[in-house]
C-alpha cells in the first residue's frame, strides 16, 4: 500500500447506547440500497491519495460498523474501525493517536475528517481538502450563506446581524496537519475546550490560519428524516451509465 501520509477520518457519531427502544444512528439508515456510512466510505475508498481510512464509531456500535463495512466494502483491509471519544474533538484525537501508533505520525501527516452522514461529498472537495491541508496546514469546507445570520447573545433580542457576504455555512471535510492540530488542542484551557463546536475552531482560537474550500449545496448532512427524503430525491434517475 502506498505511503501517502494522508488519512481519511470518518466520524460516525451518534448515541452511545443500544439498549431499549433506541433509534438506529442515522449513518446506518439506507439511502438507495446501502447504509449512508457505506456511501461515504466508498467516496474515500476511490480517492487514491488516502493511505488508510479510519472510521470512528461509538463503542456500542463498533461491531455493527465493522459488520456493515465487511458486508459492502471490498477494500475492508484499508479501513480501521476504532472507538470514538466523548466529543467530536476527542474523537479526532483518538484518530490521531491511532495513526501515530499504527502508521507513524510526523509534521506532514494530513487527516481529512468528514461526517459519516455526508455521503454526497465529491472528488473535487476531497482533492482540494488534501491540497490545502498540505499547503496551508488546515482547511474547512464551506458554502456561502444564503440566509441572513442573526445573532442573539441572550436568545431573546438580536445582538447583531453580520454582513451576509462574509458569512459561510460550514460543511465537512475539515482537514489538518494532524501533529499541529493536536499540539494546539492540547494547549487549550478547559474553558476554551468547552466552547469548541468543531475542529477548525481549535486553530481559529489560537490565531492559526484555516483556508476555505468551496463545498457544494448537495453536500448535505443527513440529520433529520426530512434529509433522508432529500437524499433519496437527489439520488436521481432510473437511467444508469
Amino acid at each position: 500500500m502506498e505511503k501517502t501520509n494522508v488519512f481519511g477520518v470518518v466520524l460516525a457519531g451518534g448515541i452511545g447506547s443500544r439498549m431499549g427502544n433506541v433509534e438506529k444512528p442515522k449513518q446506518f439508515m439506507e439511502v438507495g440500497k446501502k447504509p449512508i456510512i457505506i456511501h461515504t466510505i466508498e467516496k474515500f475508498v476511490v480517492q487514491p491519495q488516502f493511505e488508510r481510512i479510519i472510521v470512528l464509531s461509538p463503542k456500542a456500535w463498533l461491531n455493527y460498523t465493522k459488520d456493515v463495512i465487511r458486508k459492502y466494502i471490498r477494500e475492508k483491509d484499508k479501513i480501521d474501525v476504532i472507538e470514538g471519544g466523548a466529543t467530536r474533538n476527542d474523537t479526532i484525537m483518538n484518530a490521531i493517536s491511532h495513526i501515530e501508533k499504527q502508521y507513524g505520525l510526523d509534521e506532514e501527516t494530513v487527516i481529512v475528517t468528514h461526517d459519516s452522514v455526508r455521503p454526497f461529498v465529491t472528488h473535487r472537495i476531497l482533492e482540494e481538502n488534501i491540497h490545502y491541508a498540505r499547503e496551508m496546514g488546515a482547511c474547512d469546507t464551506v458554502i456561502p450563506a444564503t440566509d441572513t445570520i442573526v445573532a442573539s447573545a441572550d436568545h431573546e433580542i438580536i445582538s447583531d446581524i453580520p454582513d451576509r457576504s462574509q458569512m459561510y455555512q460550514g460543511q465537512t471535510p475539515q482537514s489538518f496537519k494532524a501533529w499541529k492540530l493536536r499540539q494546539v488542542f492540547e494547549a487549550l484551557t478547559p474553558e476554551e475546550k468547552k466552547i469548541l463546536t468543531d475542529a477548525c475552531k481549535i486553530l481559529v482560537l489560537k490565531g492559526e490560519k484555516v483556508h476555505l474550500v468551496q463545498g457544494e449545496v448537495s453536500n448535505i448532512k443527513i440529520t433529520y428524516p426530512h434529509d433522508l427524503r432529500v437524499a433519496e430525491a437527489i439520488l436521481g434517475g432510473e437511467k444508469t451509465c
Partner: protein
Amino acid sequence: MLNTVYQLKAPRQFETVFKDIPLDDRHVLVRPTHLSICHADQRYYQGNRPEAVLRSKLPMALIHEGIGKVVYDPTGTYRIGEEVVMIPNHPVEKDDIIEENYLRSTKFCGSSKDGFMQEYVSLLPDRLVRLPEGIDKIVAAFTEIVSVSYHAISRFQKFSHSRRRTIGVWGDGNLGYITSLLLKKMLPDSKVCIFGVNANKLSDFSFADETYLVSEIPENLMLDHAFECVGGNGSAIAINQIIDYIQPEGTISILGVSEDPAPINTRMVLEKGLHIFGSSRSGRADFEGLMELYKENPDIPEYLENIVGTTFEVESIKDMTEAFETDIHKLIGKTVMIWKG
C-alpha cells in the same frame, strides 16, 4: 458509490444528479481530466435535434470525447493514476461480421447512455486505452474524433481501388483538418487536396498538397477518391461536387453528420460506378491503431495543437454553460474542458 452526473435536462440547461454506481470487481473507475465538445453534443445542447429525439434521450450527460486518470481498478489491468482515453461505445453483444461500433445494440456515451460529464466514469477495462507518455493532454482529449478519421481511412484502404494518386477532402473545419492530416501520414504517396469555403481556414492546412475554395475549383481537376467532412446543410452540395469531380469507380467516404436527408446525383453515381460508404463511430482497434500512429509520428499531435480553440477550467454548472456557449461561436477549433466537476 454516489457519483455526481451532470446531465443536460433540457436544451441549454444542465443539472446535477447523483447515481449509485457499483464498486464491483469488473469495472474500472476513471476520473475525467480533459473533455472535448463535439458537434453532436452541441446539437443536444442547442436543441437542434427533433423534439421526439430530445424527449427520448434527455436528461443525459453529454460528451463522448475525453481522457482521464484511473483511480480505482479491482481488475488490476491499469496502474492507479495511469492516463487513459475512454472509448464511448459499449457493445453488449459480439458479432463475427459486424464491428462493435456499428452494432445497433451498442450503447454510445452521450447518445444512448450518459456521456463523460461525470465525477467518475465507470467502464470495463477494454473500454480504456493507455495514452502515450508525454502526449499533450488537450490534444489527447479529442482522440475520439481523430480515431473516427483513422477508422474511416482504414476502411477506405479496404474498400477502394489501389489507384490513389489524388484524394480530395471536402471541409475546412476540424474534421477536414484531422482527416486530411491522417491521410498524409497513412497514405504518404497520395496527393491530398482540401476543398473549403473559407480561405483563411484553408491556409491552416499547411501540410496539404493543394487547397481550393469550392467556388474556384479548376475545371480539369481529377480526383481518384474523396472524403466528405462537411455535414449539416452543406452535405448535399459537397457530395454532389465530389460526384462531379471524382473519377469512375472512385470511393467516397462520408463523415459529415446531417440532420436532414441529403439529395444526391444518383444518376452520376451509377454512371461512374462509384462506391459510397459512411463512417461515424470508431472501435477499440481504431483507438489502439491511432495511439501507435501517434508514437510513430509525433508531429501528428503537434499539428493537432493547431485546432485547439479554447480551454476552460470547469468546476460548476456555470462553467459548463460558459464552455458550451463559447464553443457555439468559434470559427474553428476544439473546445476542451479541463474537468474539475
